[in-house]
């Protein structure tokens, strides 16, 4: 039996309770496949449980390789989940849904225009005013003649569910800053790769033309007549719930991903801070909720938006998408009035029904809700997170105190769909998120969507949504006039924040790499000498372990070598550990995701896998195995950066790398070569240093295996041709800094770099190796001085290129009215 047959047999079994059955997305009550699946039956039916398990693990790997994460509120980022089985909707079933969604978006836009303008809905009594005036999404700063906007809603989303009869109903409208379209696109990308046969078989609508349409809508929405409007995607930052989605959208559309601190208000307009210059911003696709987007007139002290944004909108100098006031549409109390509003504003009947909702501001509805508290879902109109579920008495009290702030909703018996779990395919309920775009003068729903799978009421996974074409030759998305997305590339928007993240990207990559090399070197020696501390090898091992401890403090004794190695690789909380560097590296990369190649995430997925392997296997050789694979991952970032455009961001990665490499080398030499430990131990240590500094081969070629400190220092300090030497690093930094905008040849970082070069020129290897007792004081002094100077250089680069504006602070609420 194949997986789908088993599933079909299971779900068509009569239930013992005999209660009403859920609608199944794949199997009809008589056991036959639904229309959409019938077309794919040949392929789909063949899939066995083991096929599905393979596909499931492929999906996990692809999502990890693409670095797709989702951050549940108040939690750490976790992997995005995707089920192999898509939600399939055939053309005949989709057609009325599409018409209904388009009408709904048009209606929502008309509602916005009315509520922020003439307010006919309120004055006529069609809509009770307290449900608008009492909703936090109704922004009075946008409800002025000066802020009027004929098309405040450019991208609407809705969550839909199917009832037991198979009819789609709207559960909620999302208009504030709809998320998920990036996840939808990513889901499609992955499913098309892991189930190519099924995907090819299905004549389904591809999504790309919708993205192109979205891009032109955003560009066309620019106010004024700028020939080349600048569009930005405003993100609340990498820690937000859907930061992957935001970066995906920015990257796919070729618009820079910015944060509030990158933008500033001047002359009534919004500008982006680029290299100390200001560049005008025409359109902001906001992913920041309106309340947080203007510290001047909305929530004070918010740093997520742009102070003054409301004024810029009122002056018509910038377009915010969706309009600042759009959040009012997310009010569930609007649902009972949709039909009447549709009649009034569009003069036609409402096509798509909403889930049955009762607004408690209405006397009769309130009585009904209070009588049916146990069977209804009671929600606040604008506060989705209410903490612990309130008791019956609490609910009653809240509703009676502020009746206009609550609704009761009939729970929908959602449809179910086969979902892969530990025990094979199981029916799980789902909801469908749809996206509707204003394109030209009409609203176009995305022919597709994002399905969320629920388990015990909580979203646990997602599904791709396949809408099948009526005829295979139908244009994708029904759009024939859009241009393909070619050569769309985020214009290098090098805000100080981005440059800083790039710089640290370079530094952390190098820090991780150097520590991995040091661990690999030390571990190799440990394999031979861990039980022979009295030998020269044992002595050099002890020195190397001290070098590691100097970079990353630990409390492990010399008898806990493996624990120490594992911790330096895995413990995120241990400062200087590889895990910590990789975490910081990933954070830096995430906040500049739009600037980096997707290959970047492959590197992280391979370091992640190496970490997991090390966590799972406790053999000592796994340390070297995993460290080696982590190193391969980190090194692949080098390949990724090699293919980057030579822009200031790339230069900052290079400068960061060179500075960090110099610092790490100074530290390594300082802790291994400035004290004499006998000829044999010193020779072993020098070889270890060469290995950790990736210069063994060069050294062997140049010195024919004859190891002397002078030769080692010559190669690592002053050799201009060794890419690992301090001298080479000077050359790299000089080139990078000279190419940075604002460089004059005499900026402070450049002057500091000249000093470093002079210091290196003056360095006399013979003098540096001079001995006093057991010590080499000249070398110690030189290395300490050089490292300190490098740190100063790093600071100076930051001051010149990353200087951020002061943080905005609110004033004025202190103006307490006196008598």
């Amino acid at each position, binding site marked *: 039996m194949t997986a789908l047959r088993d599933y079909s047999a299971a779900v068509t079994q009569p239930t013992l309770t005999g209660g009403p059955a859920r609608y199944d997305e794949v199997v009809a009550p008589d056991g036959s496949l639904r229309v959409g699946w019938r077309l794919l039956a040949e392929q789909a039916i063949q899939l066995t449980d083991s096929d599905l398990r393979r596909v499931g693990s492929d999906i996990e790997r692809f999502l990890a390789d693409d670095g797709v994460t989702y951050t549940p509120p108040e939690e750490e980022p976790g992997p995005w989940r995707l089920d192999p089985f898509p939600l399939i909707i055939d053309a005949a079933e989709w057609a009325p849904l599409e018409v209904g969604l388009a009408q709904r978006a048009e209606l929502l836009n008309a509602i916005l225009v009315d509520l922020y303008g003439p307010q006919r809905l*309120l*004055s006529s*009594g069609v809509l*009770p*005013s*307290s449900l608008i*005036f*009492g909703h936090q999404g109704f922004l*009075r*700063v946008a*409800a*002025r*003649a*000066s802020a009027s906007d004929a098309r405040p809603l450019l991208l609407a989303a809705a969550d839909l569910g199917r009832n037991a009869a198979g009819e789609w109903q709207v559960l909620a409208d999302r208009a504030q800053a709809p998320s998920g379209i990036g996840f939808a696109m990513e889901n499609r990308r992955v499913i098309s790769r892991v189930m190519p046969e099924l995907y090819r078989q299905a004549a389904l609508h591809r999504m790309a033309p919708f993205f192109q349409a979205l891009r032109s809508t955003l560009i066309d929405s620019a106010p004024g007549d700028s020939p080349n409007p600048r569009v930005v995607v405003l993100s609340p930052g990498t820690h937000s719930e859907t930061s992957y989605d935001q970066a995906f959208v920015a990257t796919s559309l070729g618009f820079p991903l910015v944060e509030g601190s990158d933008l*500033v*208000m*001047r*002359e*009534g307009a919004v500008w982006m801070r680029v290299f100390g210059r200001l560049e005008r911003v025409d359109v902001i696709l906001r992913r920041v909720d309106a309340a947080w987007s203007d*510290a*001047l*007139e909305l929530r*004070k002290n918010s740093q997520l938006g742009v*102070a*003054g944004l409301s*004024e810029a909108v*009122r*002056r018509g100098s910038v377009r915010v998408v969706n309009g600042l006031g759009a959040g009012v549409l997310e009010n569930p109390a609007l649902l009972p009035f949709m039909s009447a509003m549709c009649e009034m504003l569009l003069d036609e009947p409402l096509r798509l029904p909403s889930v049955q909702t009762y607004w408690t501001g209405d006397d009769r509805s309130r009585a009904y809700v209070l009588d049916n508290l146990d069977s209804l879902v009671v929600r606040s109109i604008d506060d989705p997170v209410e903490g612990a579920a309130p008791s019956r008495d609490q609910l009653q009290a809240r509703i009676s*105190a*502020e009746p*206009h702030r609550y609704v009761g909703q009939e729970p929908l018996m959602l449809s179910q769909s086969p979902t892969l779990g530990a025990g094979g395919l199981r029916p799980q309920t789902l909801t469908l998120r749809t996206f509707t775009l204003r394109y030209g003068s009409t609203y176009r729903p995305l022919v597709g969507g994002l399905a969320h799978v629920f388990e015990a009421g909580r979203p646990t996974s997602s599904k791709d949504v396949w809408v099948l074409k009526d005829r295979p030759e139908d244009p994708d998305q029904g759009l024939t006039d859009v241009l393909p997305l070619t050569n769309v590339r985020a214009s290098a928007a090098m805000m100080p924040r981005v440059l800083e993240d790039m710089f640290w990207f370079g530094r952390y990559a190098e820090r991780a790499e150097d520590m991995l090399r040091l661990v690999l070197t030390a571990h190799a020696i440990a394999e031979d000498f861990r039980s022979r501390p009295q030998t020269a090898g044992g002595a050099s091992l002890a020195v190397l372990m001290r070098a590691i401890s100097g970079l990353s403090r630990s409390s492990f004794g010399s008898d806990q070598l493996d624990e120490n190695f594992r911790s330096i690789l895995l413990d995120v909380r241990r400062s200087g550990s590889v895990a910590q560097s990789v975490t910081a590296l990933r954070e830096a990369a995430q906040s500049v995701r739009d600037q980096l190649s997707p290959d970047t995430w492959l590197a992280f997925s391979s370091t992640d896998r190496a970490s997991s392997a090390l966590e799972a296997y406790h053999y000592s050789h796994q340390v070297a195995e995993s460290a080696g694979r982590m190193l391969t991952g980190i090194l692949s970032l080098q390949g990724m950066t090699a293919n980057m455009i030579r822009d200031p961001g790339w230069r900052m990665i290079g400068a960061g790398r060179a500075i960090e490499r110099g610092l790490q080398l100074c530290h390594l030499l300082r802790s291994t070569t400035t004290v004499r430990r006998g000829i044999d131990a010193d020779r072993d240590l020098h070889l270890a240093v060469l290995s950790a500094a990736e210069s063994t081969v060069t050294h062997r070629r140049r010195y024919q295996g004859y190891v002397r400190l002078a030769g080692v220092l010559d190669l690592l300090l002053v050799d201009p041709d060794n890419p690992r030497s301090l001298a080479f690093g000077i050359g790299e930094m000089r080139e990078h800094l000279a190419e940075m905008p604002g460089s004059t040849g005499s900026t402070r970082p450049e002057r500091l770099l000249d000093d470093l070069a002079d210091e290196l020129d003056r360095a006399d290897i013979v003098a540096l190796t001079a001995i006093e007792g057991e010590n080499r004081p000249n070398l110690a002094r030189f290395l300490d001085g050089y490292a300190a100077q490098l740190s100063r250089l790093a600071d100076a680069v930051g001051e010149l290129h990353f200087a951020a*504006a*002061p*943080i*905005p*602070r*609110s*004033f*004025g*609420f*202190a*103006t*307490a*009215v*006196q*008598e």
Partner: protein
Amino acid sequence: MNRYRVSHRTTYSYDEDVSDSLGIAYLVPRELPWQHVVSHELSLDPSTEDCTGDLDFYGNTSTYFQVTSPHQVLDILATSEVETEPPSHDEHTLDTPWESARPQRRADVADAWQAQDFALASALADQTTEAHAYAAQSLQSGRPVGEAVTDLMHRIHADFAYDKASTTVTTTIDDIFAQRAGVCQDFAHLTLACLRSHGLAVRYVSGYLATRPPPGKERIVGADATHAWAAVWIPDGGWLALDPTNDQWVNDRYVTVAWGRDYADVAPVKGVIFTEAKKSSLKVEVDVAPI
């Protein structure tokens, strides 16, 4: 008819340069049936080109400004010449039982849906159970709304002490009850909380009151201050403005600047600064001179 020249100077001083100040000011008096604005001028020092007025949701003039030249002192001076008359009230409408003055119940009155905005809770006028109970003593069943709210005004004046020291930016309705003291802003918020908790619509009004010098004394220039009071919606009868601080209905010695749901909607000056400065100080000087 009274005629006043109002000058209202707000001065912010910082211990270091501020590179960027953005602000919103509510300093332009409203044009009303009983109030005419003869002239108005707003000047900023450092001066700025970027200063524009706009009518807000409630019809108040809000002025947006941005100063981007580095400054350690920002001086905002508003000067207005205003003519005022006593607002008139139709006794008949004031006799409406207070229960029928709740906009939620008066779909038959043209502007009830708009008044409803002022019957809902707002952040600075929390409708506590204490406020509800306190107001209930004035809102006896069937009592005429004019009489009932005037009674509440008398009681607030009698029960709460005027005390500048008792109030801060974060003063809540609970604090006011606990201290039995406050300033005009607090008494206005208290009136809002009390009456809104019973479904009446009440506005927060910000403006000035021309002070009378004590008998035989000269008027002291600059001794005046900004003022605040409350106005209650009367079906078909406009808004009855009452000043619980001075225990009287608003008359022709009052200059109305702006109204909103509470102080936060119409703060005379609020803004955002970009600076490394640690300390700032604020000075407000108001003068309402009869002319």
